[in-house]
């Protein structure tokens, strides 16, 4: 590769930006709010109270092991505040000292794992931990959540991801119970392995290896270096916290009838549960919405974390998560819905003719670009219109069907950034991102895919519902 080609390749690599960059403004705004609040507190604190605080501090350090531990690790608590700055709910929890120090540590094979803090309520647990080593450059981990008797738990989701986390920096695991409530204690098993951060950067996949990657059966994790097992016991004051508002409020949204069943307000999030009407012609797939209180404070939908839960018996997304109003001291809360995404019931499955690259219908903003045959497999390429800069979204669900209704599942899906170059050498437009679907061991010329949505609607007049 000549020098100019190398420059162009580097430029296109730099077009890929990490997801975390999307929330840089939110982190700055949260940090500014926190700084101003601290300044105000500092200005108004009279000298007498400073003396009183010092006296209480000495007393607490002497009588409370928890406080002594937290005080001894104050720099880390600051790290925690910085670490959660992207999340208004967790930031408010930290500012309101709604944090349970854990102080659990285990070491093995040159690796030390520490569980520093948890932020826990009736429904959600956020575990903040560090991995420290002098043996390896970078580490990653994979969590497994169990009951204290080491039996499997049900009705929860786990969200974690510490790819690229630096040695001894904070990492987070979120455990969210969609069914049931938080147990008094649970077990966290943490498999730790060597990170491949450097490897991935220097060995970008070639078209050939990308093809192999797409058609691989599974992508296995590297060899585990250490497994740690921690029993996390929660302060019952934290796990009891939360407020459930039974609403049963029916309303019309873009011609479909929905019922807002409950609003649940926890320190870590707010969750709204909706039920459909049997006469609806479309399933609810997502909402653009926010909650506002009487002071004009807004609590937006969660975008960086668990944002919604599906329904067991239909494609509907029934439960939605928003930032928490728990610490805002709100007397009144109003939900404002400004947009909605539907999946029309007659688009639950759509037929694609692979030989002629045509589709009977496609979700709004999606084009069927190509279908390439590799022996008995196919690679399908689509483009989809971005709705937010540098962001892709799910276009297809994980199952697909043949002409006889036989069900298959994708082994992988991949999306490419806006303006990316496709396998046929064409370049997608700047406002489009690409989606690639491998149909492995699928010899047929037609396939039925399941769209994740069919259309998006921005409402001319928002729908407003009082929830408190």
């Amino acid at each position, binding site marked *: 590769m000549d*020098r*100019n080609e*190398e*420059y*162009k390749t*580097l*430029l296109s690599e*730099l*077009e890929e*930006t*990490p997801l*975390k*960059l*999307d929330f*840089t*403004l939110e*982190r*700055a*705004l949260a*940090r*500014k709010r926190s*700084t101003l609040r601290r300044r105000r507190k500092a200005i108004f604190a009279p000298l007498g109270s400073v003396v009183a605080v010092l006296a209480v501090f000495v007393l607490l350090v002497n009588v409370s092991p928890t406080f002594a531990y937290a005080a001894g690790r104050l720099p880390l608590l600051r790290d925690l505040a910085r670490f959660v700055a992207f999340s208004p709910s967790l930031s408010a929890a930290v500012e309101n000292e709604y944090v349970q120090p854990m102080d659990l540590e285990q070491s093995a094979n040159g690796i030390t794992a520490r569980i520093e803090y948890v932020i826990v309520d009736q429904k959600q647990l956020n575990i903040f931990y560090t991995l420290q080593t002098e043996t390896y450059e970078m580490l990653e981990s994979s969590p497994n959540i169990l009951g204290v008797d080491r039996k499997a738990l049900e009705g929860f989701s786990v969200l974690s991801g510490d790819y*690229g986390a*630096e040695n001894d920096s904070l990492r987070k695991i979120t455990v969210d119970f969609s069914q049931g409530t938080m147990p008094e204690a649970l077990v966290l098993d943490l498999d730790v392995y060597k990170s491949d951060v450097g490897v991935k950067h220097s060995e970008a996949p070639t078209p050939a290896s990308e093809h192999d990657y797409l058609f691989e059966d599974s992508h296995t994790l590297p060899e585990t270096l250490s497994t740690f097992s921690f029993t996390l016991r929660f302060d019952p004051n934290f796990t009891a916290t939360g407020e459930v508002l039974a609403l049963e409020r029916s309303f019309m949204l873009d011609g479909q009838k929905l019922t807002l069943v409950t609003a649940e307000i926890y320190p870590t999030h707010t969750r709204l549960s909706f039920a459909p009407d049997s006469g609806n012609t479309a399933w609810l797939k997502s909402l653009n919405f926010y909650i506002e209180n009487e002071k004009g404070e807004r609590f937006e939908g969660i975008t960086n974390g668990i944002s919604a839960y599906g329904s067991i018996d239909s494609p509907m997304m029934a439960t939605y998560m928003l930032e928490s109003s728990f610490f805002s001291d709100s007397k009144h809360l109003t939900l404002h819905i400004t947009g909605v995404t539907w999946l029309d019931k007659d688009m639950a499955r759509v037929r694609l003719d692979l030989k002629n690259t045509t589709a009977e219908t496609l979700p709004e903003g999606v084009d069927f670009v190509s279908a390439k045959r590799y022996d008995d497999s196919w690679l399908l390429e689509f483009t989809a219109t971005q709705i937010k*800069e*540098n962001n892709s979204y799910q276009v297809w669900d994980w199952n697909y069907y043949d002409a006889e209704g036989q069900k298959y599942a994708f082994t992988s899906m991949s999306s490419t950034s806006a303006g990316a170059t496709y396998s046929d050498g064409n370049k997608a437009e700047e406002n489009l991102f690409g989606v690639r679907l491998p149909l492995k061991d699928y010899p047929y010329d037609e396939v039925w895919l399941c769209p994740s949505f069919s259309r998006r609607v921005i409402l001319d007049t928002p729908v407003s519902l009082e929830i408190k």
Partner: protein
Amino acid sequence: MNENEFAELIQDKRAELYRTAYLYLGSEAAALDAVDEAVYNGLMSCKKLRSPEYFRTWMTRILINTCITELRHRKRTLNVSELPETAVEEFDALPVRDAVLRLPRELKEPIILRYFSGLTTAETASALGVPQGTAATRLRRALKLLRLELSEEEVLDGSK
């Protein structure tokens, strides 16, 4: 400029700032930290910026200062040092990204801003606080060291 205007403008500049910081510091994590710090500093002082047309160069200046501070802090831990302009063979042997990282600072800054972040030569000069002729000379020297021969068509569009 008020906070809302700042918020609107910064959303379009995040990727550009990230590219600049990434090439300056050489790692994703360090670049994200630098952009976070720069955006926070920009947010805290945006009221001082009276003319929004200078937003891009003003924000770039803040980011570069942040990167310089970061490099000072990391000097002991970073295993990357600048090469002198005379080290032509060493530059030749390095991939473009690493070669940029190891350019002397006075050449690294203009080359990143002009050829990777998409600023015009005039904006590059303004962001660095040097005359346009000086910026152009440094760009030529940097291109020569990197053995890049770029026409205007091949350069990232500065208007984006």
